[in-house]
């Protein structure tokens, strides 16, 4: 039982780490996201771009829609209540992020009212907000607070946690400085993207605010690189976990076989040959390992399917899906563990003669 629990705990941890790695290094994508580009300051995401770049970008071949997209990073009452919030061009937002759904009337209300905002359903549910509620976001990054009225709820898309409000309102509060964090573009086609990337960056080369244009996926992955070589780190931890499991299970099997040396000798005496006994030992080892593997892997799947990781991680993980691939990897490790851990002790015991085996533990 303890061996099963040991394997289960190790594979639970392995499954969790692999899922975290996947969520960090393979950001969720959609068909619509494949057509989106992000234009940011070449030096750093913290640097801003002039809003006048938008009109020039919109005139470029291959651009269907373009919206300014500025991280506001405001706080709702308490810093622990983190959720992403952005200033955008209201009538372009859902033309760029086409996979999200919003009631047309709510969208219209959002567009018409400068202090309106739209919120993702997850954040609405998290705080128990309703349409028409007034909320204030305290500026942390910017020296202004925004007072907003919720006019729309959006569903679907990759992230249902964001809040979007008018960039005009933000500009007004900032004193019309015309600053933009990034521009998000919807391209006309996938084929247009490579040319569009180079065209945009060439257009603003040798200016005070040179640009770096990249696909949405590349942009998301650039955040992961801030964590350092997380793949190597998690890979190393996972290797240590698997190696430790092998040692523990092999040790347990070795003890179990040794304790049953007399029983194995009796089975030999009544006529079980080496191959049959090896099969029995292997079946036990395999069974223990798979029981632990199933408990750990499916336990992780069940837990993360029913727990709100977004809330627990305070938005760090939008979702935390244990995929069939990860489950299969975990179960295959358990299977391999069951086989490998019994090889040496089984071989050693099967080489023991019946007479010597009957003398064991006398």
């Amino acid at each position, binding site marked *: 039982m303890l061996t099963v629990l040991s394997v289960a705990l190790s594979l639970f941890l392995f499954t969790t780490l692999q899922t975290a790695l996947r969520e960090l290094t393979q950001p969720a994508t959609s068909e619509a996201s494949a057509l989106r580009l992000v234009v940011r300051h070449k030096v750093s995401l913290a640097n801003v771009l002039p809003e006048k770049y938008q009109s020039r970008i919109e005139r470029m071949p291959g651009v269907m829609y373009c919206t300014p997209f500025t991280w506001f990073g405001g706080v709702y009452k308490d810093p622990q209540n983190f959720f992403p919030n952005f200033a955008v061009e209201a009538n372009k937002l859902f033309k760029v992020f086409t996979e999200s759904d919003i009631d047309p009337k709510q969208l219209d209300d959002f567009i018409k009212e400068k202090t309106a905002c739209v919120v993702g359903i997850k954040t609405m549910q998290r705080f128990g907000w309703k349409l028409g509620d007034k909320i204030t976001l305290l500026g942390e990054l910017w020296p202004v607070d925004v007072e907003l009225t919720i006019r729309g709820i959006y569903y679907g898309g990759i992230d249902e946690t964001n809040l979007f409000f008018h960039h005009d309102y933000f500009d007004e509060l900032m004193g019309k400085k015309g600053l933009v964090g990034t521009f998000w573009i919807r391209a006309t086609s996938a084929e247009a993207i490579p040319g569009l990337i180079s065209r945009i960056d060439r257009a603003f080369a040798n200016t005070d605010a040179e640009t770096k244009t990249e696909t949405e996926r590349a942009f998301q992955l650039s955040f992961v690189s801030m964590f350092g070589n997380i793949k190597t780190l998690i890979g190393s931890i996972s290797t240590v976990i698997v190696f430790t499991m092998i040692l523990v299970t092999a040790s347990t099997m070795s003890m179990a076989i040794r304790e049953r040396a007399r029983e194995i000798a009796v089975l030999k*005496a009544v*006529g079980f040959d080496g191959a049959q006994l090896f099969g029995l030992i292997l079946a036990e080892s395999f069974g223990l390992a798979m029981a632990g593997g199933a408990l750990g892997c499916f336990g992780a799947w069940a837990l993360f399917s029913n727990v709100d990781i977004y809330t627990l991680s305070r938005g760090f993980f939008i979702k935390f899906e244990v995929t069939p691939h990860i489950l299969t990897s975990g179960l295959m490790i358990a299977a391999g563990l069951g086989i490998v851990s019994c090889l040496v002790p089984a071989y050693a015991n099967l080489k023991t*003669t019946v007479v010597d085996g*009957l003398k064991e533990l006398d």
Partner: protein
Amino acid sequence: MSQPIVQIRDLTKIYSHGEIEVVALNHVTLDIQVAEFVALMGPSGSGKSTLLHIIAGIDRPTDGACVVHGTDVGSLGETELAGWRNHHVGFVFQTFNLIPVLTAFENVELPLLLTSLSASERRAHVEAALELVGLGDRMRHLPRQLSGGQEQRVAIARALVTDPTLLVADEPTGNLDAHSAAEVLALLQTLNRQAGKTVILVTHDPKAAAYAGRTVHLEKGELLNGNGQKP
């Protein structure tokens, strides 16, 4: 006289422990007839258990021949020998050696799992064996739920269930009280006299040896009278 069921010729067994060699059996020659009940007696270290182990095919001679029911057991490979034991030898050990997590029924059934008998046929054999030893009402009991004497009778049933050529017992009463020991020895005697089983018993107890039809004495690896006949 018909061919002996066990023919031992010039049998020698030497155990090597590094540079030290121990001669457990020294040029032993012995015949055992069909349906005999033979007791191998001798002090500790006389080689009686070693001789029994070689006859039963769980040890190999260093030199000489041991032919059981026409088969030179020393010439068989490991897998062949395992199969040979399953068909021809029934073991009864001093410490019973029942599998603790299996019921009496399952313990007795173990040797039959290696045969081609169906489940219902195996059941019939097991029930018959347990009835024979007087434990037909204890089939579902675990070893820990049985007395020492009952456990040994289950072990005898396990030894009998394949209808083996030989029934070998190595100090079967060593862990039993006098009453249980007498029951077990009487059972072995009954199996010999009424069922015609060839029984080879290793013991250091003259009272146990008295149940046998013939006693063979060993000392320091040699038969005392040199020709295997009752002294």
